[in-house]
């Protein structure tokens, strides 16, 4: 405050606010913990879902989302608290980096801060807390890596691991009852990629109708388009030309052109020239001798008719992603010029069979027996679009985790095993450390243990008893014990087949501790005056 007794001059802008010291810290803790509490009920196999209802005018008002996915929930929330925003940010990063564990990361960061707040109340300086957390994090990470195991990528064990991981990921989602079915489906899809991590090749088609059980993996490639009328509906041994070219009258791109004529004859002449130009292009295409022509852009009636007359099946308006997939699957090159028919063998894609199929009420085009067999399609069925969207997100999570596992290969036991192990490691370390940091290391252990605790609570079990029993089991040297969420007991994870990907756990641990550290270091929050928005 001012020593002289004058009113302190206003330094910041009118609506800007500044909170210092305890007030700033309180604000961060409250915000971060609130966010963590919000998503924590979705954690684990017995976690609940959330309904997200958008605000704002228009039709979107009615479009609600039902989800269990942490990143989706957090992304759609509008929060003002800056610390809460940091938590949302790490959840998003987790989603981009590994695809799963988005709830865990936010909850872990929240729990760390909850423990941190208690330490601050005990008058321990934030820097000491951070110093302790840093030691704890390293210890936890080391233990996590130590307990992970690795199997050869081609072995049956690795395949089993993948199925188990997929099952674990899916068990917290809507489709938990059919998780075995979907786990197999996802693993098969990922293994087709043969180590490549390009998720684009796995196409997910959502069609309302039927039940979730009716979903299936199609080893061919399905394009959500229709074959133009008047063409063959079934082509065997297809030679496919994939193009991204204008098949309308193909306007001249040279800048500033304009047609100016002085008689009707000339108009007719130019019209003829236009037609000739189109025909010319079609002729060039025909030289490649394709049996199927797929174009990203629209095709005018005239060239379409010309192509159909030559017995070529025409598919127009394929979207860009679809095109890339078709090209990748059939081994075709995406053409935009057609002056080198001698390269036809290289540029044309090939597949054994193209046919129009009906899924539910919709007509689709299926390419099967493709040259490169990497691409595949997962067709999802379900009673409503909300269910389909949620299944889509779940499958996406599972696919991401599987791809990460294929890259990283290391796995750990699930069911809270890794968190309990890390917590135990931290507690052992805390006994060796001198100084106040030890409190923070213990706090880190408690925060880690909160994850299995919350999973228990969400399942309606007695978490205090279960977690204590869990500790004892671990102490006995039972390395693969974990929570059995069907019976509410401590069981063997190797018997239950609950595994998780190391990379996901690693990333969650590192991101959460980094974020908690970041928030802990803040002792001053300056909020600038909000930008004035003109109503349009």
């Amino acid at each position: 405050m001012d020593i002289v007794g004058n009113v302190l001059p206003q330094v910041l802008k009118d609506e800007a606010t500044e909170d210092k010291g305890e007030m700033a810290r309180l604000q961060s803790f409250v915000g971060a913990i609130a966010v963590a509490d919000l998503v924590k009920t979705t954690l684990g196999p017995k976690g609940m879902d959330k309904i997200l209802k958008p605000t704002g005018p228009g039709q979107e008002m009615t479009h609600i989302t039902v989800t269990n996915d942490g990143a989706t929930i957090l992304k759609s929330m509008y929060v003002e608290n800056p610390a809460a925003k940091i938590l949302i940010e790490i959840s998003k990063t987790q989603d981009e980096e590994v695809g799963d564990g988005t709830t865990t990361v936010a909850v872990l960061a929240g729990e760390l801060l909850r423990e941190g707040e208690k330490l601050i109340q005990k008058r321990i300086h934030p820097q000491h807390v951070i110093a302790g957390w840093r030691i704890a994090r390293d210890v936890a990470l080391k233990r996590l890596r130590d307990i992970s195991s690795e199997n050869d990528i081609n072995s049956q064990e690795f395949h089993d691991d993948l199925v188990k991981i997929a099952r674990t990921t899916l068990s917290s989602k809507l489709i938990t009852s059919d998780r075995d079915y979907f786990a197999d489906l996802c693993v098969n899809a990922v293994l087709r990629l043969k180590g490549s991590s390009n998720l684009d090749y796995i196409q997910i088609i959502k069609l309302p109708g039927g039940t979730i059980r009716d979903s299936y993996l199609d080893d061919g490639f399905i394009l959500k388009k229709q074959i133009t009328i008047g063409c063959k509906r079934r082509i065997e041994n297809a030679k496919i030309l994939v193009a991204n070219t204008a098949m309308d009258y193909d306007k001249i791109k040279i800048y500033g052109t304009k047609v100016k004529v002085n008689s009707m004859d000339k108009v007719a002449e130019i019209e003829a020239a236009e037609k000739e130009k189109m025909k010319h292009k079609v002729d060039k295409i025909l030289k490649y001798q394709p049996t199927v022509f797929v174009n990203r852009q629209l095709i005018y009636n005239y060239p379409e008719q010309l192509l159909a007359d030559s017995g070529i099946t025409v598919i127009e308006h394929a979207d860009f992603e679809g095109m890339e997939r078709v090209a990748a699957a059939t081994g075709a090159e995406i053409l935009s010029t057609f002056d080198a028919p001698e390269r036809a063998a290289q540029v044309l894609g090939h597949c054994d069979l193209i046919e129009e199929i009906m899924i539910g009420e919709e007509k689709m085009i299926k390419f099967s027996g493709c040259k490169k067999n990497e691409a595949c399609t997962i067709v999802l069925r379900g009673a409503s679009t909300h269910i389909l969207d949620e299944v889509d997100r779940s499958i996406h999570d599972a696919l991401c985790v599987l791809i990460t596992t294929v890259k990283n290969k290391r796995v750990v036991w699930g069911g809270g095993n890794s968190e309990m192990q890390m917590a135990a490691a931290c507690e052992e370390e805390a006994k060796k450390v001198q100084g106040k940091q030890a409190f923070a290391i213990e706090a880190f252990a408690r925060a880690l243990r909160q994850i299995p605790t919350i999973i228990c609570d969400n399942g309606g079990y007695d978490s205090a008893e279960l977690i204590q029993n869990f500790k004892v089991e671990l102490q006995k040297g039972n390395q693969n014990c974990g929570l059995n969420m069907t019976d509410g007991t401590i069981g063997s994870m190797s018997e239950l087949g609950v595994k998780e990907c190391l990379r996901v756990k690693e990333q969650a641990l590192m991101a959460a501790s980094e974020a908690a550290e970041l928030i802990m270091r803040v002792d001053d929050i300056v909020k600038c005056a909000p930008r004035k928005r003109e109503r349009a």
Partner: protein
Amino acid sequence: MSLAFDDYGRPYIILRDQGQKKRMKGLEAYKSNILAAKAVANTLSSSLGPKGMDKMLVSPDGDVSVTNDGATIVEKMEIQHPTAKLLVELSQSQDAEIGDGTTGVVVLAGKLLEQALTLLDKGIHPLKISDGFDRACDVAIKHLETISEEIDIQANEHEALIQAACTALGSKVVSKRKRELGKIAVTAVLDVADLARRDVNLDLIKIQTKTGGSVEDTRLISGILIDKDMSHPQMPKEVKEAKICLLTCPFEPPKPKTKHNINISSAEDYKKLYLQEQQYFVDMVKLVKDSGANIALCQWGFDDEANHLLLQNELPAVRWVSGTDVELIAMATGARIIPRFQEITPEKLGKAGSVKEVQFGTSNERMLVIENCQCTKAVTILIRGGSQMIVDEAKRSIHDAICVIRNLIKDNRIVYGGGSAELACAIQVLQYADEVSSVEQYAIRSFADALEGIPCCLADNCGLNPITSVAQAKARQLQESNPRIGIDCMELGTTDMKEQRIYETLSSKKQQIQLATQVVKMILKIDDVIAPDDY
């Protein structure tokens, strides 16, 4: 508001719209200015030193950033008070000139103003105060030079540079990995440094951020990383022995800038124009291909047809490369930037060992790495971290470290940190004060007090008792005539900063004291503030 009167005693108005303006003058103006500037300095003072805290800043659009960097904090606070703004500029000029010590300079200015306030209360004229500060500043700078030490930057695998970088990184959120990051920064700077001329062009170090992973995953790439991918999905993902053609013209039909019309009046014209158009693309690709290039980087876009022709001619290409990247690539690969297709010649191509596409995470984001460039004088530091806020802060921290290393390469004299240099100067200034027989003596003595404020503030932030620890350090400096005694912030058990190896560059310290003194002098000279009333 003051009024003037004419010969007949009628009041008249001097300022335009006088009624709507606010005016402060005399002592009131001094005090208000000083208090405003001090408020800013106070906010920053808790960020000083290795145990300093961070600030969370929410922008007008609601974006959050968390930082420890003084220049960034004051910039993002959006300060509106005119005198407080001077401190913002002070911090920014330190950032522009030195790159590090942006917090320290503001805190020092704050301490000086605090002292000025008590001197004003004693009734000393502001100009006398500023004169005194000026003389004290000269003494302090001279003393800094005498206590500075030259270090051998080459010795022991650049150990001294790494230590200096660690000192700069020590106060940041990334301090846990300061050694690794320090090494990265040192290697990066040495890679691009021109040791003969003792100069470093910082443009050659590109800092690219990408969320995901953790700060540990930050690495140095001896090449350039650009956030782009190949223009056609089927182009090869890697080009070895790359010969790079760097274009700043689009693969599109020409668009003359003069407004014009091409009139088509017959079918012949129409056909001719069509052929002409086709020819353009063929020619363009041919020109590039003929020069022997095996990859084309272009600042502009491609037409679909051109794109395919490039693929067909097995010429991988990248479009929409940003202007700064184009320049960087040109410097690194020795390529000449080519503004017209006609001017492509084999000599103008740049060479690099490989150009390849790398992928991150699950979201299919790809970047291009250009490695082993012909003139390897460009490096990229790829920063990873758990969230956007972390990588942003890491970027600022690494920038600070890089600046420190550059300064050391330019001038290898250092002083020791931990407040020891400030204390040594304070002692010297105090001695000098006794020799001055005029009113300035008081100001000079106050200057010494202000300098002591820095170690005081450091000790405070570290949870030590500021007065006791500063008094102890000062006493030991005098007894042992050892200017390296400072505050033991990290509780390592020694107050000798040489043993703790806390290095700060002489240029940065000098600049801090000079800039802070200058700004304080400027603020002390203001005796009248006229501003619109709605402030």
